[in-house]
């Protein structure tokens, strides 16, 4: 059973759903998000490659649990889905909390406090 493949698709769907329903940072509508993800995906090639290259592997995948598609330096293609889920979750939470943090004008802050919103300022 390709459990890593299944879990990766599940994680991606879960993070997307979490963002759209719960976190609602609006990150998927931000150009900066897609550009940043693209840049990170490119840098993932050497980083992930170093960890998974078959010549001297650091992170060793059980061949039974992934689809078997290795790209660039032997990295399982699932790793990019894993990376998407990992980075998107952090970015959505970051942007969401920024809405409270950056609401520094008194009117906005009062409104946030009145609605029980976070007063989480750094």
């Amino acid at each position: 059973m390709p459990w890593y493949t299944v879990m990766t698709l599940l994680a991606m769907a879960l993070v997307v759903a979490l963002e759209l329903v719960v976190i609602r940072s609006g990150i998927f509508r931000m150009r900066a998000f897609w550009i940043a993800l693209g840049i990170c995906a490119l840098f993932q090639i050497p980083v992930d490659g170093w960890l998974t290259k078959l010549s001297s592997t650091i992170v060793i995948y059980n061949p039974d649990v992934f689809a078997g598609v290795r790209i660039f330096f032997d990295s399982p293609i699932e790793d990019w889905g894993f990376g998407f889920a990992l980075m998107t979750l952090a970015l959505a939470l970051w942007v969401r909390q920024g809405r409270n943090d950056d609401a520094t004008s008194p009117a906005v802050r009062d409104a946030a406090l009145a609605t029980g919103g976070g007063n989480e300022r750094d």
Partner: protein
Amino acid sequence: MQRFQYLIVMALCVGVTLPLEFILNARVYRRPRRMFGALLPTVAAFVVWDVFAIRLGHWTFSPEYTTGWKIGNIPVEEITFFVVIPLCALLSFEAVSNILRDGWVATLRAGVLGRLLPAGRSGTGSSERGDTTRSEELV
């Protein structure tokens, strides 16, 4: 030294993205509460996945290239990974956001280079908490 390979890769990720904080004024490390607020739930979620994946034998780690230091069944390298990679994403996102919103020149000027270059800026009394940067942002 070989057994530090995974950790060294992580350190390189931190090192390569560190200039984004200061040169492109990402201000991720300088907003620690928000940073931890984004990282902690993320790390927690992926550690849970990792615990089960390791237990079920989905992936293992080279004893030659990892330290062998573990928390439960998770190598410290993995926890480092779950902190470092999202951190790189946050820094990239903030840097890109700055450039899209303010342009390269204003972004570089707002960063540490702006304090070194004679750009005709007054009010260089930047406090440790970066209050001047914050007030600039509000303009």
